[in-house]
Structures are given as structure tokens and as C-alpha cells.
């Protein structure tokens, strides 16, 4: 297997992009990435998208987007793994370059969610239709059950959930690509409208449009193009039962803890070696549980950790979601995993501006689908 590097990135602003179609959004991000990388061609491309069929009535995204990008006849593949589609798109591109099959590959992701489809229903297709959705389950509902279980088992406090959203909005206020660039307070979170008890509106990531793309190539090729390639140190993917109720525990996401175990083994790293992380905070409780399952904190201590500032950009021993996370940056589902990689890239290149983590050498991105039935973790390192 060849060593793989990321050499360029591009993304649109996340938000309600009324004047842009799914094609416009993807092409904008992809052209920015190609220009940023300084390559004159790509050999292949992947695009992560969860549900373009339900959101905008458009499937066959691979060929469609390669066409509008002017890249026919390269192989172009759409990747779907619910909210982990972007992270899996990156992993597929990584594997294609590592295998030696292609030299330069684009990994992208896109979602156009604000065109009028019933977003809650479309997202619910990532859960088990027969045994969960038929009973009226929604994603806020599933994560609310997880939150209730965590609060019951570990005495996690409601204010600690709010602290996740407050921190991520503070980080997102410094990100020009973020959907919400305003800071919020714990009181505002606690007073926002109830969605699924105990989760309130400001615990939930928003509905967003957006696209993101990165360019990968072998390290040998990268060193001829740039002095500052970012090394893909490792990439793993796992799965778990699709239905939340089938799991032995509701307070651990086994796909995440298993993926963490695998990636630390693959990279010969420990949780303490990670300088900062982007994690999948689709709901505030998710960031708390994932920060535990990645080994950053003991089980049950994730809530206290965020409240004490252990994950903050300013004082944290492991800053989490410096981009603003899904909560503040926005969550155009298929683009999210790629946008996480872009935050890692900017931090590792020292180009994150007001969000810059000091001495950022190794970053971890964790992206998951459904109630944790799919998980992909990628670790990037400054060379």
C-alpha cells in the first residue's frame, strides 16, 4: 500500500443556499479543491451523498457531477452511508490511491436539503423502517433515548449537553464557512423549544445545503506538487446493528469504540497522541458519547469534560470540533465527513486563523451514520 496525502481542499459556505442547485454546490467545492491542489487532472472521483433522491429527486450523482465538473470520462462513484457518506467517500478515495490504481483522486460530498422535502422523514430512512420508523421514531427521538440512558447511567446533566452546543457555536463564530456564526449561552439552549425530551432545538444540528471536496494523491506525487502535503496516517470503517434497541448498551456506540481500537492499532497511536478532533455532533449527546468512545475521556466523564473546558479551543487538552462541528458549521449530510477532513487539513497546515490549535500535528475525524450503525475514522498528520 502506498502512503497517501491530501494536497488541496475546497468547500462552499454551509447554510440555506437558495440560489444554488446540488450541481452548482458540488462543482463550486470541487473546482476550489482542484485549484487549491494545483493539479491539472483527476483520475477518479467519489461523491458522498445520503439521499439526493429524496431531497432533490436526483440520483446517479457520480456521472452527473463528473459531467458538470467537466471530468468525463473518469470513473465517478456516489457513496452512501447515511450521515457517514462523506467520511466513507474520503476512505474510498484513500484506498484507491493507496492501492496504486489511481494517482490523483477527488473525494467530495454534497447535500441539498432545503428544497422542500420532508427532511425528518428523509433522514429517518437511515433507521430501520420496519422496526423503528413504523413506530414513529425520528433521529432526534433515537438520540433522545441515548441521552436519557446516559443521563440515567452516568448522571450526565442537562447543562452538560448544552455546553457542547455553546462551545461549538463559539468555535463556529470564527469559521467563515459556518452556517451559524453567532455565540449562544447555556440558558438559550435550555430555553429553546423541546424537540425530543431531553433534547432541545439548540442541541440539534441544523438542516443545511453545502458541498466539500479534497484532493488525494500518493505521497510521492504530493512531494513533487507541494512542500506541505498532509499525510493520511490511517483510515478505518465499522458497522453496528441498524436498530438502536438491538444493542447491548445504549450508552456506548460500539461502531465508534471498535473503530477507535482499530485506528489506534493501525496508526500505532494512543488517544493522548491526538492533538485535536472533529467528531460527529449531530446532537449534543453524540459528541459526549463519542469523546468517551474515542478514549479521550473515561466512560461517563464526557459530560463533565466539556463543561470543564477540556474540549475547548482555548483551554482544552483535546480541542473538539474547532470548526464549529455539525451544530454550528452546519450538517449538509453527505458533505459533513469531507468538511471534517478540511478542518483537519487547515489546522495541520496552520491556516485555521482564529480557530488555530497550537502545535497541531495530528488530527482525528470521526463521522457516523444513523444512530451509530456506521462509523468511519480518519487520522491526518502534518509532514
Amino acid at each position, binding site marked *: 500500500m502506498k502512503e497517501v496525502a491530501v494536497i488541496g481542499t475546497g468547500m462552499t459556505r454551509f447554510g440555506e443556499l437558495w440560489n444554488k442547485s446540488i450541481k452548482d454546490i458540488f462543482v463550486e467545492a470541487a473546482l476550489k479543491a482542484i485549484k487549491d491542489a494545483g493539479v491539472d487532472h483527476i483520475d477518479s472521483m467519489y461523491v458522498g451523498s445520503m439521499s439526493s433522491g429524496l431531497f432533490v429527486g436526483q440520483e446517479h450523482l457520480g456521472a452527473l457531477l463528473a459531467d458538470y465538473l467537466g471530468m468525463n470520462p473518469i470513473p465517478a462513484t456516489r457513496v452512501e452511508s447515511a450521515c457517514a457518506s462523506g467520511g466513507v467517500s474520503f476512505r474510498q478515495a484513500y484506498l484507491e490511491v493507496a492501492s496504486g490504481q489511481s494517482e490523483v483522486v477527488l473525494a467530495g460530498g454534497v447535500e441539498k436539503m432545503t428544497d422542500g422535502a420532508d427532511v425528518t*422523514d428523509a433522514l429517518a430512512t437511515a433507521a430501520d423502517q420496519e422496526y*423503528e420508523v413504523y*413506530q*414513529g421514531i*425520528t433521529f432526534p*427521538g433515537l438520540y*433522545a*433515548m441515548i441521552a*436519557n440512558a446516559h443521563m440515567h447511567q452516568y448522571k450526565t446533566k442537562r447543562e452538560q449537553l448544552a455546553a457542547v452546543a455553546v462551545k461549538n457555536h463559539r468555535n463556529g463564530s470564527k469559521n467563515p464557512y459556518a452556517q451559524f456564526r453567532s455565540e449562544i449561552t447555556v440558558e438559550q439552549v435550555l430555553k429553546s423549544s423541546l424537540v425530543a425530551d431531553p433534547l432541545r432545538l439548540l442541541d440539534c444540528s441544523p438542516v443545511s445545503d453545502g458541498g466539500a471536496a479534497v484532493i488525494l494523491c500518493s505521497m510521492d506525487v504530493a512531494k513533487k506538487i507541494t512542500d506541505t502535503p498532509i499525510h493520511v496516517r490511517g483510515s478505518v470503517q465499522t458497522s453496528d446493528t441498524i436498530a438502536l434497541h438491538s444493542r447491548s448498551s445504549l450508552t456506548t456506540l460500539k461502531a465508534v469504540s471498535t473503530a477507535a481500537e482499530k485506528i489506534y492499532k493501525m496508526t500505532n497511536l494512543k488517544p493522548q497522541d491526538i492533538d485535536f478532533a472533529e467528531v460527529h455532533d449531530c446532537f449534543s449527546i453524540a459528541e459526549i458519547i463519542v469523546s468517551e468512545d474515542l478514549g479521550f475521556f473515561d466512560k461517563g466523564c464526557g459530560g463533565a469534560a466539556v463543561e470543564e473546558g477540556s474540549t475547548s479551543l482555548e483551554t482544552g487538552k483535546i480541542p473538539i470540533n474547532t470548526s464549529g462541528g455539525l451544530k454550528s458549521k452546519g450538517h449538509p449530510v453527505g458533505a459533513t465527513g469531507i468538511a471534517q477532513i478540511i478542518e483537519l487539513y487547515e489546522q495541520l497546515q496552520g491556516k485555521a486563523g482564529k480557530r488555530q490549535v497550537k502545535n497541531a500535528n495530528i488530527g482525528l475525524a470521526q463521522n457516523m451514520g444513523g444512530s451509530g450503525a456506521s462509523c468511519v475514522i480518519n487520522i491526518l498528520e502534518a509532514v
Partner: protein
Amino acid sequence: MISPKYFREIPQRYRLEASRCKGCVELDDGVKITTQIVETDLNKLQIGQNVKLVFRRIQDDGKAGIHCYGYKAVVS
């Protein structure tokens, strides 16, 4: 039967009741399911409380007039 976890949420498509509670329920034989918990004072509902399954209408297909049935849980 045991109801280890519960939550309440604002209904989206399922409008047979104004407020709903759903939870993961473990059956006597170890099978676990997600189900609605009905006919219960939600404020008194506890994790670990015993429930039993009942046969109820789950949703309606309004225009076609088709009723869809299935299981729900009530506190036993």
C-alpha cells in the same frame, strides 16, 4: 417486560395523539424492540418500569382509508 429507556417527542407524521412517548423495551424472552408507550402518565414513567404489549392502531393512510396496526406498550 421491562422498559429500560424512554423519551417523549413532538410527533411528525404520526398524529393519532398530541404527545408521544417511545422507548426500548426488553421482552421476557430477551428480544428488544422500540415501541410507543401509551395510556400512561408520562411524568411518572421510569426507566426499569414493567410494561406489557397491547394491540393498537399505529397509523392511518388518510386518503386510502387504510388503518395500520401493531404493538404498543402500556404500564402493567
